[in-house]
């Protein structure tokens, strides 16, 4: 009897320590991952590179610290109670003294949490206000983002640019801020714009206009993806943001605003494109193709990926994508075009010239 009780105690106390160990291991592992371990984590919310993400980062650390303190205190109380008040092996079998409650104690553990909540709320309200109600500076770049099943359309009305899936924005110098303000729409179902290192997510909802802004501090590529379930291929509705220098961004925009290049060498491919269903969905400016359902292809080759980031933009992938989209992205709304091998090569060659 004595032995089994002892074993039960060892097990329960051992279990507690094991739990703490697991938790510590988890925390240290998580920290090493989240704060720049060897494994790069390009969508880490704890590596902000833009003011909205930065604001969230700071309030997050504040909340995490408070949560850690509360956890430590309550966990210690619980662990102490379990160890100290376990039934001993030499128990006399008498019932412990009944205690029905204590108003003072109850009051203490009611007021203290209320104070914590108040502090947390004030800190949070400040961040909500500073991110949501930030005034738009005159130098801001304006972009309209439209969510589609399952790709992103980006329009720059002031610059005359239309592109897809890869958003280009200028770096914002804190001295001369050039933030990018994004107006969010949806052409079909709900989507959500989420590039964790630049800002929290904001939904794209049909029949509704939402707004968000970013002011990236460093040049580079930032990845994200759709964060609101939008249908079969929600998973491969990937998103890339290219942050260029101001100069680089201007050059890119100028280039993108040009109509498509015309090259006689690929006139056969262009003929196939313009005489099949391709042009019902895709636009190529300067040609008769002006479809609106799919991405604008005027400068297709200036993008590094196709199929909303599902594949790299190489000649083989492009050909495969036109031949059988299901092979890359099952459930995509682009149909297989059933072209002959010859036409397939011709169209691929034509698209390859759209720089």
């Amino acid at each position, binding site marked *: 009897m004595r032995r089994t009780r002892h074993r039960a105690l060892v097990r329960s106390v051992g279990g507690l320590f094991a739990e703490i160990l697991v938790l510590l291991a988890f925390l240290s592992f998580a920290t090493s991952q989240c704060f720049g371990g060897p494994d790069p984590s390009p969508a880490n919310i704890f590596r902000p590179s833009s003011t909205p993400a930065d604001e969230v980062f700071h309030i*997050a650390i504040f909340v995490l610290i408070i949560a850690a303190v509360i956890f430590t205190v309550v966990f210690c109380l619980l662990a102490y109670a379990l160890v100290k008040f376990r039934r001993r092996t030499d128990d006399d079998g008498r019932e412990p003294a009944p205690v029905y409650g204590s108003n003072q104690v109850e009051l203490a553990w009611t007021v203290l949490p209320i104070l914590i909540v108040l502090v947390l709320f004030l800190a949070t309200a400040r961040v909500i206000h500073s991110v949501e109600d930030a005034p738009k500076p005159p130098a801001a770049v304006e972009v309209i983002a439209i969510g589609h099943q399952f790709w992103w359309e980006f329009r720059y009305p002031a610059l005359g640019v239309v592109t897809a899936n890869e958003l280009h924005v200028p770096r914002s110098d804190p001295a001369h801020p050039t933030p990018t303000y994004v107006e969010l729409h949806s052409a079909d179902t709900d989507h959500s714009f989420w590039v964790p290192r630049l800002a929290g997510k904001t939904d794209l909802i049909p029949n509704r206009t939402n707004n968000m802004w970013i002011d990236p501090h460093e040049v580079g590529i930032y990845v994200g993806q759709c964060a*609101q379930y939008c249908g079969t291929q929600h998973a491969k509705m990937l998103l890339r943001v290219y942050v260029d220098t101001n100069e680089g961004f201007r050059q890119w925009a100028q280039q993108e605003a040009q109509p498509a290049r015309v090259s006689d060498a690929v006139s056969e491919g262009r003929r196939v494109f313009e005489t099949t269903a391709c042009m019902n969905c895709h636009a190529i400016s300067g040609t008769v193709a002006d479809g609106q359902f799919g991405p604008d292809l005027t400068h297709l080759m200036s993008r590094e990926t196709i199929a909303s980031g599902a594949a790299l933009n190489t000649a083989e992938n492009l050909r495969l994508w036109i031949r059988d989209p299901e092979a890359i992205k099952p459930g995509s709304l682009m149909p297989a075009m059933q072209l002959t091998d010859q036409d397939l090569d011709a169209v691929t060659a034509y698209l390859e010239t759209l720089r």
Partner: protein
Amino acid sequence: MSSDSIAFNPAVESTRPIGDRLHDWVATVDHKKLGIMYILYALVFLVIGGIEATIMRIQLIVPHNHFVSPQVFNEMFTMHGTTMIFFVAMPIMFGFANYLLPLMIGARDMAFPRLNAWSFWLAAFGGLLLYFSFIGGNGLYGAGGAPDVGWFAYAPLTARVFSIGHSTDFWTLGLVVSGIGSIGTAANIVATVLCMRCAGMTLGKMPLLAWMNLVMAGLVLLAISPLTAAQIMLSLDRYLGAHFFDTQAGGSAVIWMHFFWIFGHPEVYVLVIPAFAFASEIIPVFSRKPIFGYPVMVAATVAIGFVSFTVWAHHMFTVGMNSYANSFFTISTMIVGVPTGIKIFNWIGTMWGGKIQFKTPMLFCIGFLFQFLIAGLTGIMLAVAPFDWQLGNSYFVVAHFHYVIVGAILFALFGAFYYWFPKMSGRMYNERLGKWHFWLFLIGFHLTFDFMHIPGLLGMPRRIYTYEPGRGWDIWNLIITVGVFFQAAGILVFVCNLLWSRIRGPVCASDPWDAWTLEWSTSSPPPEYNFAVLPVVRSRRPLWDIKHPEDPDWKYE
């Protein structure tokens, strides 16, 4: 026929023809039989929902896996969520409420036994209707298909243009039917608790379980109605050309979100308050002390019930509400933490100065306390609207609510299973297997759901059937999936324990835990009429008063 049930007699029971015994169950209006049917029905769906979860986890074990197609994956997470909430968690809670309430308040049955049976069968057929979609989802068009719109079925994905066939209709009708059953059960619980208490049991002397189920039933009445209304509006959209949520015709997607979450958030408390109820009965008995701060526990429960109706839009921090709305829902959500914190402190206060016995039900309650603490803290993080802009719809949220639903609710439920198993079956479960179940499930749970927070912080959204390598998510997804197998092993031990103990477990006395509430004063299992003589109580712990006539509770309360 009824004389068989007066005392449990396995020999007599097993000589009756199986058809007769089945007929007894199907035609019964007895709250105990209905309770057990609710529980068994939910257990079957628990296994089905678990299999769906396992399929998802196998698919996500490595990036770019091809275990299932995106279509099947989307069906799996829709069915998993819908099943676990509506056809596991709710019926199992109703089952326990049905079984325990009349016994604990000294009544012979629920207030409306026929309504009770009707509600159960509606819930049961609602579940079958939902699962029929696997066969009939696409109607006459060919092969079947389960709904793939997610368990909160955001508009306009449910509009006919995006959801072809009948899968969404099976989802809608299944929930409407079972929802009517839930409303029936809730009305029954309210009436039973308010009108059927035995002599001497004032509201202030009810067991906490009765109080908490009363609040739960009130929440069901208020929360299921908007859901049912929304489902009917959706059906009107789909079949009669209404445009409530049809954005292409000027409807509003956001209105659906409001309808859904004004149901969806109180729903969390519909599930967690009965879990609180189990903990509030089990922890005192295994600490050998009365609950600490009974009136405060009641007040905290009622407060949670009220506040839970003011927090729904914290599920919508990313839909572009203005800064005032976001601030309001931040503070209202944080306020829930206050009564919840009070409860945790009161449970620890109950253990304080006691003599804690680490039997299986108590182990599960300790697990419940520990995990509920963490779930509450991650809940506070998500209540911070800006933090939620990053965490919302990521795997962090998935980890958080599984911490609540599995770590807290399911752990408390397992505690309740072991605690009341002797009462329901008349036999004792196997303690060794119970501990195996606890440790296997605990390890599995923490492997899966602790590590599930991390990919969320690293930018992994939920509901994706596959993911890109090179984002730092791979290792975490692998660990999460490994944990699932530990959990499955734990469940297997649990089911074996139940079956084995039901058939071979040692027959046990009516009060194996030396407990204090009325259900332990009658035989195990209780006779059909529960009590030969209706009890009269003078305190919250009537059996304590009987066992300790020299020092009864009613002198102090």
